[in-house]
């Protein structure tokens, strides 16, 4: 019964069939498409000639990740002059189930040790208190600089 089901959540910018029908190739320009469909979720990376309207519906699953269903990507392509050249709606059928590569590029920086984390926030509490890890290369040319300036005077 519905008590046990999680509500279906609409994600992204859903383009309804009748909105899609209003876009006919060769007629609309970018401004018209933006007025009817709103601004695109993403544009093509190289140049502004492909607009993507990405949407899907997700539902919370017990003990699992979000169950994504009804994924839709509307691709609106424009020609050089800015008029619509082609409109395609891609859905789950075109999608390929891609396995994410596990590897991650490492980020330099100080990981806090367990004890620091546990007692890091006892007493004074601020970014300074916790950020006492060691930088990858602790270069302090400053010491040299200071040495010459001051010791020159001190001797």
């Amino acid at each position, binding site marked *: 019964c519905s008590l046990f089901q999680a509500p279906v959540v609409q994600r992204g910018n859903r383009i309804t069939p009748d909105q899609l029908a209003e876009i006919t190739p060769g007629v609309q320009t970018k401004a018209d498409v933006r007025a009817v469909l709103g601004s695109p979720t993403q544009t093509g990376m190289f140049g502004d000639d*492909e607009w993507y309207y990405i949407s899907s519906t997700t539902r919370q699953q017990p003990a699992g990740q979000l169950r994504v269903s009804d994924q839709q990507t509307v691709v609106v392509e424009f020609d050089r002059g800015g008029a619509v050249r082609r409109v395609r709606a891609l859905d789950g059928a*075109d999608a390929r189930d891609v396995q994410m590569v596990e590897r991650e590029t490492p*980020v330099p920086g100080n990981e806090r040790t367990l004890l620091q984390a546990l007692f890091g926030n006892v007493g004074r509490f601020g970014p300074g208190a916790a950020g006492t890890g060691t930088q990858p290369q602790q270069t302090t040319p400053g010491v040299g600089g200071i040495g010459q300036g001051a010791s020159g005077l001190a001797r």
Partner: protein
Amino acid sequence: CSSNWDGTADSLGSSRRGASATVDASPEGLYAAGVENLQARRFQQAVDLFDRVERDHPYSTWATNAKLMAAYGDYMRNRYTEAIGALDRFIQLHPAHRDVAYAYYLRALSYYEQIADAQRDQRGTEQAMVALQDVVNRFPDTAYARDARLKIDLARDHLAGKEMNIGRFYQRQRLYGAAIGRFRRVVEDYQTTNHVPEALHRLTEIYLALGVTEEARKTASVLGHNFPGSPWYQDSYALLVEGAPGAEPQRAGLLRRAWNAVF
């Protein structure tokens, strides 16, 4: 220990009290004791001594240098907020001082040390980049600027790392619209960092998962063109060309596969 023992028991007891009792109160004496404490890494005593120079002899030329040395002592004791406060005062009072370049550099270092790792709030990183950029703009041809440029790249790497983490978070949940936005920001705003190859590969993965194959092909070609040797390009190539092996063995570990099967 280095503070000289003058026969009385208490001078041995705490070198801090002993040191200030025995050293003469002239600015040079105090300053020399302070530098000596710095070398011996007793930063607390050094900072106290430099403060005394500044308080008792505000008009000696030593006072200006003492301010800078006190800030350096605070920096070495990881009390970054105090160090930054002292350096700001120094820069305001002595903008034309010989070592003002070092003051700016030490201030930038104090912000830089407070950078948390990529998972957490990156405001510290942004402050550090502003301070480091300040050093590069004011003193372009000094050793400090060279090190500052290096640290700016590291800080920028942090910011890119954070964007990548968020991107992977959304991709793992298959919320592709959100993931694309984050990886695009890495490719466009952080071109000099070493996260760009992975960002391009992730975009290829996502565009394929959305079914937009020609955008995926275009992204993979950009990746191949700019980073031919990168293992990420090998992965993208494997996705687009049937049968080509990825950079790491595709067969996920037994435990991982068993785990995924269960949950």
